């Protein structure tokens, strides 16, 4: 009993300790730069000039891209695996997609640099630019495929399995009688999904998307490899950038001064705050549907 209670209390201690360490480590930078650190856009460690603006921008753009691409894809895969595919196909494809989530992020990143980035640079960039070039985010083709866009694609690949398997589990829990009832009324498969399956699971799907967003926001190593390391905010997503997490892992082993370390802790603090907020939002939504026992941790 005492042991169990001790272990349980430890979970809370971990959260508090993480917050405490990160805030303490960041405090020199917090007291020197204040909240303006979050949106200032210069990062010159040797001159004691630090601002998270451009990293935060790149982080938000890549994560938003992953969210926008991965949610419909993941939901479609979830539908396929739960309702559309014949059973033998399900038992093969389901595990394969979960395996995709098991591949370490560094290997996805490596693959992103060697295979995905050249493909993006040679094919996707010119194609998107020629069709949608009037929107400034699809700027002209760059010399390498290492860019915010490629980072967004890599993040998409990493979070699609999360959305897919969570939403599959949600769809499987929709009572069969409701679906059969709708089908008996003459609804087509799409109408059953649109009218019965999606409305009953909407909150759960949103929670799953938020969890995926949280994962995308915090991903460091794969993004660091493919995002290209630029440090200016560009309208075009084909330009390189640096995300918050990537900056931390790139610079922590080669610190210029004490304040540099504090600034990196400040970046971690920003990630911590965003991560906790996303997670709490997901939990609140999931609790409203009542699935909080089963859903959030896989």
């Amino acid at each position, binding site marked *: *009993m005492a*042991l*169990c*209670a001790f272990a*349980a209390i*430890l*979970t*809370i201690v*971990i959260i508090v*300790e993480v917050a405490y360490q*990160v805030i*303490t480590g960041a405090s020199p930078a917090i007291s020197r730069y204040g909240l303006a650190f979050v949106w200032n856009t210069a990062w010159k460690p040797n001159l004691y000039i630090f601002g998270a603006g451009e990293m935060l921008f790149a982080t938000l753009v890549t994560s938003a891209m992953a969210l926008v691409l991965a949610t419909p*894809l993941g939901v*479609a895969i979830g539908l*396929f695996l739960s309702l559309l*595919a014949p059973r033998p196909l399900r038992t093969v494809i389901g595990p394969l*997609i979960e395996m*995709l989530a*098991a591949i*370490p*992020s*560094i*290997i996805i990143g*490596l693959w992103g640099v*060697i*295979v995905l980035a050249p493909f993006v640079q040679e094919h996707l960039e010119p194609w998107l630019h020629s069709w949608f070039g009037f929107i400034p985010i699809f700027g002209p083709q760059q010399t390498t495929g290492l860019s915010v866009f490629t980072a967004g694609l890599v993040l998409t690949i990493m979070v699609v399995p999360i959305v*897919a398997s969570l939403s599959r*589990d*949600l769809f499987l*829990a*929709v009572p069969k009688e409701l679906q059969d009832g709708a089908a008996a009324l003459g609804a*087509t498969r799409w*109408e059953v999904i649109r*009218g*019965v399956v999606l*409305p*009953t699971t909407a*909150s759960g799907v949103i929670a799953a998307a938020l969890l995926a967003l949280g994962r995308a*926001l*915090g*991903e*460091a*190593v794969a993004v660091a490899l493919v995002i290209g390391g630029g440090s200016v905010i560009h309208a075009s997503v084909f330009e390189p950038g640096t995300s918050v*997490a990537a900056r*931390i*892992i790139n610079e922590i*082993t080669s610190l210029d001064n004490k304040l540099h370390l504090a600034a990196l*802790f400040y970046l*971690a603090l920003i990630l*911590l705050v965003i*991560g*906790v907020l996303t*997670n709490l939002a997901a939990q609140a939504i999931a609790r409203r*549907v*009542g*699935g909080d*026992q*089963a859903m959030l*941790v*896989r």
Partner: protein
Amino acid sequence: MSGLSEPSAVGAEEPPASGLPDPTAPLTATGSLRRRAAVSRALEVTATGSALLAVAVFCIVIYTVVSRGAGAISFSFLTTDPTGIGTGGIAPAIVGSAVIVAIATAIAMPLGVLIALYLIEFAGRRSGRVVRMALDLTNGLPTVVVAIMVYGLIVVGSGDSAIAASIALAIVMLPLIARSSHQVLLLVPGTLREASDALGVSRWRGVLGVVLPSALGGIVTATILAAARAAGETVPILLLSSLVTSNDVQINPLHAVSAMPLTIYTDFNDGVPAAVTQAWGTALVLMAIILAANIGARMFLARNRSRLGL
């Protein structure tokens, strides 16, 4: 049992749409049957296409790693020390990964199971909720934040070490093991527990002798999956155990030891062709281990399930 409901069935049984204007609206037939059938067909094709796309990406990643890494693999690659940048073997990285993940598992597994037991056997409604929330929050922490916490806690004071990386990985693994164990323990039939209570067995003896053994399969599966996840994490090792000073196999966890993700990262960033080849070879070894662990855990779970008749 703290009023735990059946997982995830509750929401589904509610009438679908408290906040939606008219839940039957999408079910009102509109347009010709042919158009409706076509829309439905389009959805099926899209869903199938999405699933195939994901499988295709998975296959392309596997193919890339295998085709680029296979050339580097040999017996000596796995068993000898590196001799320079991109030359020699990766034995220290393999052993180092094993050491780091073993220590992390040794920390996280008992704690995770204890937390799950707490949630099942002892927690009140409120305390259970708080602990579950803390677990979910921990699970949602970016690994880079966990790693930088341990950096501030240990590395700033006493330098890089394998144990620091292990602690960070243990924090990553803990919520995975605790929540999966919790779910497995929920499945243990109440009759088993009642039988042991009826025999006058104390609470602890009942837990150790009856509840845990029947849930062991699921707990082991969860631990293997969590360890596989930890083995692939790069950031904690990069931040906490990267200042490796020697080329030999190191097993002292108080010093920095090499690890496979670190070898991949540094070799690849090095850019020398030989180092890049070594990075792919290491990636192949790491991926093979992780996927094998995943497949093994799944098969074990399936066997276990059918034995328990679940």
